[in-house]
């Protein structure tokens, strides 16, 4: 049987992203213009994102149920496509500054984005595995893209070794689940014997594999080193894209496999609690802004896992009950991606040649040298902190609501405590920017130039953060649709 046109339409975004990736690689030996590749990359990421609308219009299962094109995958395709677009905008001046080739970077970015798209739409475990590998392998290379930097190479090596170890867990889990159920299609697993040890073990392995990707404690140790060593635009990508995609697959497994929701409640409870504390306590003592944001992203994975615990606790009463908890995860990922992209873009720009100015001391008195940049970074940090009139506030609010809905008061209180711990280190950055005087050499250097592309990223993420913080209705109404998953 050959694939039908409709099948192609249902994976169109991924096809476009892959196609542009291949095109960039093919043209690379012939074209020397950097602008040309940047233009191609912007065009490709936008085209793929636009194609997500086509996939939504022609929604349904594709390729015999291997992928599912529904509102859920639409949301994530839109998210990762936008992330890719913004990363291109932010990376162009960075690559120029660091004298790095552009074409390979964009090609890898395309493959990673396609992988994330596959992850978000996969409805079959091996397809999910392929998506995971596509995005991971590209990520390993991207992490080590600054080849002459020891830190970058270390970052890539660490990511690769630990990442492939985790992928092995994931693959082994798939094998066990297949052994227990006789299928790798998620929607066919509903009838399987839920008490089978093999199935439970397999699902646990899958959870470990994905837990690594989203940086859940105790699988989070790689995060700070990898985030610190990778080129900053790549760090921005890591914190926004692959994490969201891995969460997407995890969420889909829940929504479709009843056995998964049944046994994972305590696993998620513990993961959430551990991850929040690991991230926030780790961040308290950081003096490097990239490491600080890395630990903060661990903490935020913990908050999202709180919503997962709520899903598992609610889902036993039927998936309709769990809809607000799903919505909480989706909204959080969106707000979080916006904020982290904006913050890392500023860090990338302020880092200067060779990424030398990354310590908190370099941010002293930033509000006087560059008031707008300081104000924007403050808004991003306040959004991470969860203060009102930012998207992060509603993200946190919906997660709190999901937790309280599921009677997980204890977890909600733990999250509240963690928010306060988090407040301390986010405030520390703001304090340094606003309440300390700039060092003499920093003042002598004068303001750092912010090129047009970077400003565009900042504007988009800033407007998004405020807009969804004042009026989240459109997004919330969309992700609360009953037909979010499947058709």
């Amino acid at each position: 049987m050959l694939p039908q046109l409709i099948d192609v339409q249902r994976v169109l975004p991924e096809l476009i992203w892959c196609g542009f990736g291949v095109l960039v690689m093919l043209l690379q030996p012939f074209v020397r213009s950097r602008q040309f590749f940047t233009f191609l990359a912007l065009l490709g990421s936008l085209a793929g994102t636009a194609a997500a609308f086509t996939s939504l219009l022609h929604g349904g299962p594709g390729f015999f149920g291997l992928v599912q094109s529904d509102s859920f995958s639409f949301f994530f395709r839109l998210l990762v496509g936008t992330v890719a677009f913004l990363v291109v905008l932010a990376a162009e001046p960075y690559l120029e500054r660091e004298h790095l080739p552009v074409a390979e970077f964009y090609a890898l970015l395309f493959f990673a984005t396609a992988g994330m798209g596959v992850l978000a739409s996969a409805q079959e475990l091996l397809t999910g595995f392929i998506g995971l590998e596509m995005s991971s392998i590209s990520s390993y290379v991207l992490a080590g893209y600054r080849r002459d930097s020891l830190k970058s190479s270390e970052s890539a090596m660490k990511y690769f070794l630990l990442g492939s170890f985790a992928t092995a867990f994931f693959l082994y889990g798939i094998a066990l689940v297949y052994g227990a159920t006789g299928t790798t299609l998620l929607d066919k697993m509903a009838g399987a014997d839920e008490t089978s040890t093999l199935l439970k073990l397999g699902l646990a392995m899958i959870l470990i594999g994905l837990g690594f990707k989203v940086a859940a404690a105790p699988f989070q140790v790689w995060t700070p080193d990898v985030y610190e060593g990778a080129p900053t635009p790549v760090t921005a990508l890591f914190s926004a894209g692959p994490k969201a995609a891995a969460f997407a697959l995890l969420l889909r497994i829940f929504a479709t496999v009843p056995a998964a929701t049944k046994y994972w409640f305590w696993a998620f409870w513990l993961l959430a609690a551990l991850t929040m504390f690991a991230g926030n306590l780790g961040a308290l003592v950081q003096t490097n802004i990239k490491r600080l944001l890395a630990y903060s992203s661990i903490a935020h994975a913990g908050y999202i896992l709180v919503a997962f615990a709520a899903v598992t606790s609610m889902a036993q009463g039927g998936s309709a009950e769990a809809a607000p908890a799903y919505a909480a995860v989706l909204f959080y990922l969106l707000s979080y991606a916006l904020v982290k992209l904006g913050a890392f873009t500023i860090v990338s720009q302020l880092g200067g040649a060779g990424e030398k100015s990354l310590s908190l001391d370099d941010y002293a008195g930033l509000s006087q040298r560059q008031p707008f940049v300081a104000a924007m970074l403050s808004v991003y940090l306040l959004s991470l902190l969860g203060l009102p009139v930012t998207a992060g506030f509603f993200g946190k609010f919906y997660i709190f609501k999901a937790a309280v809905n599921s009677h997980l008061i204890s977890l909600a209180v733990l999250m509240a405590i963690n928010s306060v711990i988090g407040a301390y280190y986010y405030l520390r950055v703001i304090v340094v920017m606003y309440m300390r005087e700039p060092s003499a050499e920093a003042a002598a250097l004068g303001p750092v130039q912010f090129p047009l592309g970077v400003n565009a990223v900042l504007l988009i993420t800033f407007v998004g953060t405020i807009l969804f913080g004042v009026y989240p209705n459109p997004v919330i109404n969309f992700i609360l649709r009953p037909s979010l998953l499947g058709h």
Partner: protein
Amino acid sequence: MLNGGHLLSVLIFFPAIGAAALMVLRGDDHKFIRAIALAVSIAEFLFSLAMLRGVPIGASGYQLEEFSKWISAPPIHYHVGVDGISMFLVLLTTFLTPISVLASWNSIQHRVKEFFVMLLMLEVGVVGVFLSLDTFLFFLFWELMLIPMAFLIGIWGHERRVYAAVKFVLYTMAGSILMLVGIIWLYNATGTFDLPTIQQALAGGQLILAPRTEMLLFLAFFFAFAIKVPLFPLHTWLPDAHVEAPTAGSVMLAGVLLKLGTYGMIRFCLPLFPEASRRAARWVAVLAIIGIIYGALVSMVQPNLKKLVAYSSVSHLGFVVLGIFAFHNISMQGAVYQMLAHGISTGALFLLVGMLYDRRHTFEISEFGGLSTPMPKLAAFFLFVALSSLGLPMLNGFVGEFLILLGTYQRHWGWAAWAALGVILSACYLLWSYQRVFFGEITVEKNRTLPDASARERWILATMAVVTLWMGIGSAFITRRTAVAAQTVIEQVEPQRAYEVAAPADGGQLRSVSATSAATGTNMERLGVR
């Protein structure tokens, strides 16, 4: 349900427009920026006076309500309204803001534009909190005012400003995040964030919370408010924040922000969780009394004048909490009155301390002494304000404290007896510190040539003094308008023991109360002066 236009929305957002206008202006013309800030804040005050017409005396329930949809899922509404209690707290806020602007006229010299932007944004948050009738909206403004205040302390404060600012934010956030969990829990139980709807459901018996749930919810709210008040033993952020804050920050902090805590107790804790409030009342009262006496004792031994005033706030706010949790009509009225009176008197005290600091750059009492010789006018104002703060009859502090003690006595004479100790102690520390600062020999040479109050300072202080005197004599103007709201709260918390309404005709009654107690007042004074 809806009447009277958009006055309240104007009140909330007008300072924000002013702040936005300031932000786009050029930052180097300081005079112009100050003038704009003053104009905006005075206009805001005039707008807020219009509330006096919009809220009829004796009308129960919320007035001037505005209600519109905001968030679709979960249903959150933009719902604002005002009653007798919140009206005067808003008036206090809008009155103190221009005063703060004037007080910062010369003392703020760097980053002037940002300073006034923050001050106006603070006003937005505070007015929003007082007017919100949706629990979610309330929380939103509650968090919103945190950042401007933290910046005011952290950028324009004194030496340990950063420490104080961070401590302030962390303390407040610790409470408020738990309150958010409480708000969501309450939503889960009731299906709405709308305060009047929840109150009706509770009153009508459609909604009954299990005792344990009610207690936990009560604590979630109460904890946030108690930190803000601050109630002993959660008060440790206050002295730091006050001492480090610039004068305008201290005025707003003591004058208005502390009242948010007591206002929250009146608006949320008592009406929503009456059973839990009754169960907790005894413990809260004990903490309040400890706060009254502890705050006063610490004030007495303070070598730092600003810290002394800060600890006196702990003591005075203890009275307010005691008055609220005595569940008596008169003490509730007294609590509201004391909130307003404390805002004026302590605000004025901080202004005076700030003026001394502008001249000498120190708060140490030992650095002063004999100041009444070089600056007789300032000394006179200081004495006037100190007397009002310690509760001299005819001035504002007396009315509140007396009503609180009167009401509390009828519920529990022991509480009143202990709390009365605080009245005596406050006379001791205020008069003793006054003596050390203004009387005696001039010990430090520099003090001989200090300039007396300038015209600007005299205007500020005279305004404060007029209000102090007016509140002491014309207390009926306020109590008539707060009576119904106070009565409503008492009915909600103790339906079976509702007392007869003490208003609107009771203006005269209250006046006679002031008269009969004049003797007690002079006794106290004698004790204090010694």
